[in-house]
């Protein structure tokens, strides 16, 4: 997808918060994209042939080292490019992230029945740009357009063949990895252009941002796809990619790779609350392996109008418009930030893929389906009753103990963690009850 020149490092944060009670349990924690290093996030707004793509990344090096080269299916005009707001992508990430919820056992002794802020810069071409054009022509590269948008210098390049393009890019500070020639050739033959962007240091200084804002491009093309092949050339191993698709009718899936639902609604031991990040990483790792590293995972699919439980509020109509949801009409200033549960005509799909060239040889191709069934990665912890007791708890404790054993097994299955380690972390409710039947040591020896 993109070529980032410097190493990226991500801080690992886990936001733990408690919010209002909801039907699907108390929301405890979420596994957002900051769990994974080198994660790119792409928001794809799509309806008919119209696409708005927002590209955010966790680049944390020196901005002067930042550059992206992205194949695009059409010529891009100045007004089709925008610099977006990183906070909105973060909000979308938080809203769609897999979540941990908790329930508290009731008192067992009670009886129960059962794109618009562009810098103006259209004056005569400065001499530096004329020079750029000259050097480009000599390499057989056509700079179809060059724009400065926000803190980015952007060029739209077309070329007759890859050799000149790659040499020109290398000469101009875009370090293109070896092996790129074939892929670039392939894209050129498919009539794709190259969208290249670098940070304009002066603009960046005058704008005063400490981080890079996401780039947005709007275009019309029947290709509903994400070019990932250039990204696989970097010898940095597997890449982590999140795609948030915002569509009018329903869930988005890949047509040339399997889209698999991430396991959900699993009850896990209480201690997962403190290790949710580790838990999710281990589970994702195991799931990828289980599907031969060739699957795209569905982490969230929901109508944007509501959520239950909410890892974050749904995005407001204004935020959605900024992400490029063009079918939402402009609204007056009366809009409240917290949405009432109303249909917004926006369906969000969150896909998570870990890819490399061996397992994902082809670009990701998508299609919009009519499926509006809500889906979320949701993990549940149940706290046993810890309050005062007024009756004999033998039966309750035996039940809890069985449940805890089930939870331990579920966790071991999901993550591949050692069952004994898991059991050691669980405060079993064995008040008067017999010890849980331990499975023999050889039971999981070869499984």
């Amino acid at each position, binding site marked *: 997808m993109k070529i980032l020149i410097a190493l990226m490092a991500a801080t690992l944060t886990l936001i733990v918060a408690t919010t209002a009670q909801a039907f699907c349990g108390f929301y405890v924690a979420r596994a957002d994209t900051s769990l994974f290093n080198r994660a790119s996030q792409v928001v794809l707004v799509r309806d008919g042939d119209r696409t708005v793509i927002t590209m955010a990344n966790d680049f944390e090096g020196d901005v002067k080292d930042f550059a992206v080269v992205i194949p695009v299916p059409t010529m891009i005009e100045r007004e089709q490019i925008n610099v977006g707001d990183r906070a909105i992508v973060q909000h979308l990430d938080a809203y769609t992230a897999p979540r941990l919820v908790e329930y508290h056992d009731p008192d067992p002794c009670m009886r129960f029945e059962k794109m618009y802020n562009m810098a103006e810069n259209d004056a005569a071409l400065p001499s530096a740009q004329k020079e750029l054009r000259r050097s480009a022509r000599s390499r057989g590269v056509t700079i179809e357009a060059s724009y400065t948008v926000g803190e980015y210098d952007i060029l739209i390049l077309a070329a007759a063949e890859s050799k000149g393009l790659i040499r020109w890019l290398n000469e101009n500070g875009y370090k293109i990895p070896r092996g790129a020639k*074939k892929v670039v050739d392939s894209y050129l033959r498919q009539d794709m252009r190259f969208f290249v962007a670098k940070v304009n240091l002066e603009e960046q200084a005058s704008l005063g941002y400490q981080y890079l804002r996401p780039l947005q491009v709007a275009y019309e093309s*029947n290709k509903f*796809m994400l070019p990932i092949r250039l990204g696989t050339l970097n010898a940095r191993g597997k890449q982590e990619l999140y795609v948030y698709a915002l569509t009018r009718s329903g869930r988005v899936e890949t047509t040339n790779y*399997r889209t698999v639902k991430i396991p959900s609604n699993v009850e896990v031991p209480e201690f997962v609350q403190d290790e949710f990040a580790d838990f999710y990483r281990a589970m994702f790792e195991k799931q990828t392996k289980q*599907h031969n590293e*060739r699957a795209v995972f569905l982490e969230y699919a929901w109508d944007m109008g509501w959520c239950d439980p909410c890892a974050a509020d749904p995005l407001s109509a204004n935020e959605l418009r900024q992400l490029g949801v063009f079918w939402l009409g402009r609204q007056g200033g009366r809009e409240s930030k917290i949405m009432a549960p109303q249909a917004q005509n926006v369906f969000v799909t969150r896909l998570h893929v870990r890819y490399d060239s061996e397992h994902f040889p*082809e670009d990701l191709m998508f299609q919009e389906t*009519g499926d509006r069934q809500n889906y979320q990665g949701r993990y549940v912890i149940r706290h046993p009753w810890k309050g005062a007791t007024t009756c004999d708890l033998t039966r309750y404790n035996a039940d809890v103990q069985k449940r805890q054993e089930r939870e331990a097994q579920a966790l071991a299955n999901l993550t591949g963690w050692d069952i004994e380690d898991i059991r050691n972390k669980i405060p079993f409710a064995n008040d008067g009850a017999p010890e849980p039947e331990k499975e023999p040591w050889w039971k999981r020896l070869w499984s």
Partner: protein
Amino acid sequence: MRLPGTRSFLLRDPRYYQIAVLSSLLLFGVFVLDFGIHWQNAVVIVATALCVQYLGSRYAQLPGFNPLSPLITSLSLTLLLRTDELVIAAIAASIAIGSKFLIRVGGKHVFNPANVALVTMMLASDHAWVSSGQWGSAAIGAFTLACLGFLVLTRARRAETTVAFLVFFAALLFGRAAWLGDPLAIPMHQLQNGALLIFAFFMISDPKTTPDSPRGRILYAAIVAAVAFTIQFIYYTPNGPILALIMSAPFVPLIDRFMRGRHYHWLSRDALSGKQIKGAIR
């Protein structure tokens, strides 16, 4: 080892084998892999298809009611059609079987039943779609073997369409990769597609909706492959083969006019007249 009983049974009517393969695939898909198919859809589609076939047989005054063809149609339809509404599943099954009785040219039905139902529903409703990429590689491998087994068992009788389509389509994919300079992994990956296999072995293969002469069938397969490739790799629209089949259907009566051949009957005399088979049946 010889299994004369099984062999004759399968040879007498290849549809038994097709039904066995499709239903095991469906069971595997629903209960083992998560294909996104609900068992309710399968029940509704099969029941509707059988009802419509029964009514159609009476309307057309056919000698009897044969459930084999509508079963194959409904199984293919269940495997390919995704919908969250049972009504759509029922309408699709009705269109599939109904089209056999209502849209006929020169004594043959024009459209492949499952195909016409899929395309109509995809165009008419937002709630119908085809998930072509939802098969794991293990499922594709097993399914490919089962399909090849079918070719061996029937000695590729009437299988020109399937083989020719796969050969032409693969040639176009490899040709594209060669022209683009792409690694071979890309066309290989494009061919490993469950929906493509169902299409090649259970849809385009339908002898009732393909030309009567062998040369005609090969020509037809080439047309479908070219149209499918154009849709998928020039217009970048998914489900190329399925759309291509319905677009190419009008060529069948045309090809039949210029290349004469014999109409196909499932229990044809030549299927029963071979010495070996005769012996086996006895």
